[in-house]
């Protein structure tokens, strides 16, 4: 160790170092990253251009350690304390605690050098990333929930960015399934963005409790600037085996996720959308450029099934047992809704129906119909959004879309 201050820092880092990583190296990397004009991404580029041998950890150590002094250590201490407060664990690329999908091909691929996580991203199951815009339509969130739930119940892990809109729909639908879900933050761990998800008892807490992980490559307190969000999207793509773009505008970050997915040889799916809707520009363009169409969980599970994890899945009764969309269908649920209301919602699914339109179709008295909708909403059968009422789950076989 070149500077005595770093020895003390390594001691402090022991608490936040993931098993299998070296606290001393973590301390050195943090000390490097906190100083201006030095980035870990710069280190990665330097290593990528200089052909060397050895493990990533050994090469990082050789590159970083000689340049550090006590000043760096002093700056790093405060940052480390904030990670401690949040209960995060840091792992270095290539180490056992670091997601292996993200480390593939490093340093030629752009996996982060240091990853802070609370919880562990599971390595042992197929993983799908569901991505899309924050400003999502009910169609988008409906499809996302459908895909995420089916994938999660088939044992696949669902990754997304933790934002509102499509991301939130994916996490919510998958959080209580056997596959689980994890978040890649677009900010530091203690920034609490988006606030409604990060507050105690919010979505992120729920994900951690359910065994999922919340990860970020950023130092604490880094705000979700546009550049940081774009960088985050490459991690989402890298952590997944299959990436599905559900909704996004012409300049959506989902297109960057798609590009990152192709660079890493991930399977890219896109959900066809309404050609008139601005939110469908990104997936429809990707379909034109050769992405696989995703018309339901069947398509998604098929691609997951083809991947190398097939054997493992068969063993746990994962994808193979669940089969395609046709088999995921359950018996017609005991609906709290009067038959005509249920039929109207089923016919529209996954689109929302404005309440007024619904009332005109069913020819029920406004009061009685509203009462029934409340009952169904309390029972969790339907949800109401700005665009109207929508069934929360995919309706059963009789009215099924093509699968």
């Amino acid at each position, binding site marked *: 160790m070149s500077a005595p201050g770093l020895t003390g820092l390594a001691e402090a880092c022991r608490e936040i170092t993931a098993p299998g990583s070296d606290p001393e190296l973590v301390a050195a990397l943090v000390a490097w990253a906190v100083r201006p004009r030095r980035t870990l991404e710069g280190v990665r580029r330097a290593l990528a251009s200089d052909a060397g041998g050895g493990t990533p950890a050994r090469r990082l150590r050789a590159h970083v350690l000689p340049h550090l002094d006590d000043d760096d250590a002093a700056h790093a201490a405060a940052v480390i304390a904030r990670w401690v407060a949040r209960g995060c664990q840091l792992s270095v690329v290539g180490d056992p605690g670091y997601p292996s999908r993200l480390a593939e091909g490093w340093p030629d691929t752009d996996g982060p050098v240091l990853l802070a996580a609370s919880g562990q991203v599971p390595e042992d199951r197929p993983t799908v990333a569901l991505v899309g815009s*924050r*400003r999502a339509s009910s169609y988008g969130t409906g499809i996302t929930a459908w895909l995420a739930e089916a994938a999660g119940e088939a044992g696949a892990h669902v990754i997304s960015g933790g934002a*509102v*809109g499509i991301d939130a729909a994916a996490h919510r639908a998958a959080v209580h399934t056997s596959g689980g879900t994890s978040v890649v933050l677009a900010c530091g761990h203690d920034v609490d963005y*988006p606030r*409604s998800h990060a507050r105690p008892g919010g979505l992120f807490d729920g994900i951690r409790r359910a065994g999922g992980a919340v990860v970020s490559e950023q130092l604490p307190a880094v705000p979700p600037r546009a550049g940081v969000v774009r960088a985050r999207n490459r991690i989402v793509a890298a952590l997944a085996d299959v990436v599905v773009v559900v909704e996004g505008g012409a300049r959506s970050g989902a297109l960057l996720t798609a590009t990152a997915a192709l660079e890493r040889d991930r399977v890219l799916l896109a959900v066809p959308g309404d050609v008139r*809707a*601005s939110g469908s520009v990104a997936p429809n363009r990707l379909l034109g450029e050769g992405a696989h169409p995703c018309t339901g969980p069947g398509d998604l599970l098929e691609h997951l099934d083809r991947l190398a994890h097939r054997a493992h899945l068969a063993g746990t009764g994962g994808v193979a047992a669940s089969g395609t969309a046709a088999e995921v269908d359950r018996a017609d649920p005991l609906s709290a809704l009067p038959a005509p209301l249920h039929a109207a919602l089923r016919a529209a699914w996954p689109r929302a129906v*404005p*309440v*007024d*339109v619904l*009332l*005109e179709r069913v020819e029920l008295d*406004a*009061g*009685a119909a*509203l*009462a*029934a*909708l*409340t*009952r169904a*909403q*309390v029972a969790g059968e339907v949800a*109401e*959004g*700005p*665009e*109207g009422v929508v069934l929360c789950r995919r309706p059963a076989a009789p009215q099924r879309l093509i699968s």
Partner: protein
Amino acid sequence: MGRPLAIVRGVALLGLTAREVRVEAASSPGLPLLRLVGLPDAAVREAGDRVRTAITRHGLRWPGERIVVNLAPADLPKAGSAFDLPLAVAILAATGQVPIAAAAACWACGELGLDGSVRPVAGQLPLVAGARQLGAERLLLPAAAASEAALVEGLELLPVADIGEVVELLGGRCAPRVVEPLPRQAGVTGPDLAEVRGQPVARRAVELAAAGGHHLLLSGPPGCGKSMLAARLPGLLPQLTTDEALEVAALHSLAGLRSPEQPLDLRPPLRSPHQVVSAAALVGGGSGVPRPGEVSLAHRGVLTLDELLEVPRAVLDALRQPLEQGEVVLTRSRARVSYPAKVLLVAATNPCPCGYLGDPRRACSCRPDRIERYRARLSGPLLDRLDLQVSLRPLDPDALVGAASGEASSVVATRVADARQRAAARWGGGTLNRDADPQGLRHATDRRALARLAGALHGVGGSARAFDRTLRVARTIADLGDDEVVRTVHVEEAVAYRLPATRGAA
């Protein structure tokens, strides 16, 4: 010792509350001078000059001695020009031009012109009503305001057109004029509900609002009919009784919005202040004795607030107390007044800053966090008080072209009147379901319905206040369906009017 003291009684208003003011005049040898004592404001102090000019120009005698006029009680602040007439009468009595006994049996209120004419003042109607309440039997008042005053029963009116007529009348040289009371203006006018196309949920909500007095929030993109629905609400309310109409007219008179010749309006008032309204204009205010604001001017009627979220937060919060208690209490350094404010609030808002969230034909251009912040401006406590929250959607073109199919206002008004009668019979004294006592409410509610309500509100994060308020809406729904017991379906429908915005704010 000079002549005996001359006394005439006048009325001072603190808000709608009348206080008796004894105007005492005494003349004594000295320089010809008028002194006014007893906390007069600038307008009352000027009365001296007006009265003096009016008396002399009218050929009556102004005394060549010192006159002191006391407005008792001396600690009560007096404002305005309504003391001109009692002042003049007291001076005329003190100088022997009218009999002291006749003056002492009279109350008087009115303003004098320099030519001696007697004119009505702002707040003439509450002055007359106040005099009656304080036990006045004979009242001298401007002839122009006599017909209006005749609406107040049990008062002998002495209408006078000028100061000369006062002398004739009190001297017993002529008989008082005969007064015809004002006509009452009734009948449903205004736009009809039949013209509103589609919007079944909003129509239902408007009917419930009319029947139970529940406050209404209409949210929807521009042009979907929010203002149309709000404008039709007063037409669904029952007509005011004469007493209620007098109370409303008194408030309008106090604000200077009513001329005495206007017929008494039995229709519930509709007030629609612009969204840049100030807190003082909305709930009342002003220096000295505060004047009634829009929320009091809409008393027993409808107050509409368009673009609710463009109204400053402080102004919205000022609305909370009047909505809850049905009256506004304004405290100033010189007076503490309360005005009644039993209004039905109809608020309208866009669903997001650009207005097009949820519109199928036009994309919303707002960022999600902006929408969240926009909705957060509806403070939780005010949102809780808006019992009926309805999202409106733009009409599709087919509905615009076809024939209007909705029920007419008169049909709905009949149902509303029936439901109101049921509520009034239950709670007594014309109480609306909105103001019903929570204990009594729970008593007549099905046990399963209560459990259902608790469960449903827990699911959407409602407060304890929301519980009782939702139950009141359910009571109105049951009343409209002529059901004595509040059942589960009533409760479920009531919760439906709370869901959209509650979730939006979460």
